[in-house]
């Protein structure tokens, strides 16, 4: 043990450890993708027609059951991936390095405040911008999703600086800029939600999968050497 302990470096490395294998991004990606999907499905005419038929056959409780069922999708995504994450880390990824329980405050208050402020500013700016598509009943929804995209972008950029992981900078920049595209197309509420969720979901999944692949190769290399 060296006499000079670099405390800040140790703190940073431990905070980074939770995000070093990409599994958190995969979890967020699946969660966002599934929320986008149920936003679209939940108000899709065919789904609503199906729920209406259920109501006629079984009564009004069927409506609640139907919506609870579709909300199970993101819940399963969140908790299912958490269970898989813990399993994969215990069995393979963290077997040699040891286990760390992530701090409940993985993201600093500063980063959350910056993201919240960006969302509010984004809403104001979005509604003041001359619309680039025809003003329709769904423009407000597109502004909301675009603002959420900008806030998410700023969140990842600030988080990247906070935790010193460069890939989040790119995720924030690409995701934030791409979210602006939502304003350009005449998407309805559900469609905008689907595009938002799937766009961020696919990007986070791809990033997480790439990092996981590298982490898995490194672990396999350590097993061969060790």
């Amino acid at each position, binding site marked *: 043990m060296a006499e000079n302990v670099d405390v800040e470096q*140790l703190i940073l490395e431990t905070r980074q450890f939770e995000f070093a294998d990409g599994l958190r991004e995969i979890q967020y990606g699946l969660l966002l993708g599934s929320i986008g999907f149920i936003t679209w499905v939940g108000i899709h005419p065919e789904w609503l027609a199906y729920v209406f038929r259920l109501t006629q056959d079984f009564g009004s409780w069927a409506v609640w059951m139907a919506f609870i069922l579709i909300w199970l999708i993101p819940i399963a995504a969140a908790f299912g991936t958490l269970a898989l994450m813990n399993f994969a880390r215990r069995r393979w990824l963290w077997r040699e390095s040891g*286990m760390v329980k992530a701090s409940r405050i993985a993201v600093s208050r500063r980063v959350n405040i910056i993201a919240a402020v960006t969302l509010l500013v984004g809403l104001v700016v979005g509604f003041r911008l001359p619309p680039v598509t025809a003003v329709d009943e769904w423009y407000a929804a597109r502004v909301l999703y675009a603002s959420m995209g900008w806030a998410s972008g700023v969140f990842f950029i600030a988080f990247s600086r906070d935790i010193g992981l460069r890939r989040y900078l790119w995720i924030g920049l690409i995701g934030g800029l791409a979210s602006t595209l939502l304003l350009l197309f005449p998407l309805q509420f559900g469609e905008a939600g689907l595009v938002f969720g799937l766009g961020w979901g696919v990007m986070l999944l791809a990033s997480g999968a790439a990092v996981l692949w590298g982490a898995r190769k490194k672990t396999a290399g350590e097993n061969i050497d060790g």
Partner: protein
Amino acid sequence: MDEFKEITSFDRLIHEPSRLAIMAVLYASAGADFKYLLNATGLTKGNLSAHLRKLEEAGYLKIEKSFKGNYPHTTAALTKDGRKAFEAYRKQYLALAKQLGK
């Protein structure tokens, strides 16, 4: 002279390099197991055990022992007091470092 006074007022339990490393790792997490602490701090098993015990006796951390299959599994996490103590220590040394940097 002021800087010297400042250094002597540091929490000696945390100030010891090995324990400082342990506290830093646990501060950045909600807990870590023995293996992670070994790898992160570079201490020997005996040394790490001794330092963890000392910090536990001071009320700065709590240790949980369990079994994963047939293997003992030890995890450590900072207590509220430990977290407060480390934050105070960190604030002190960062202020001192800033002062010395001038």
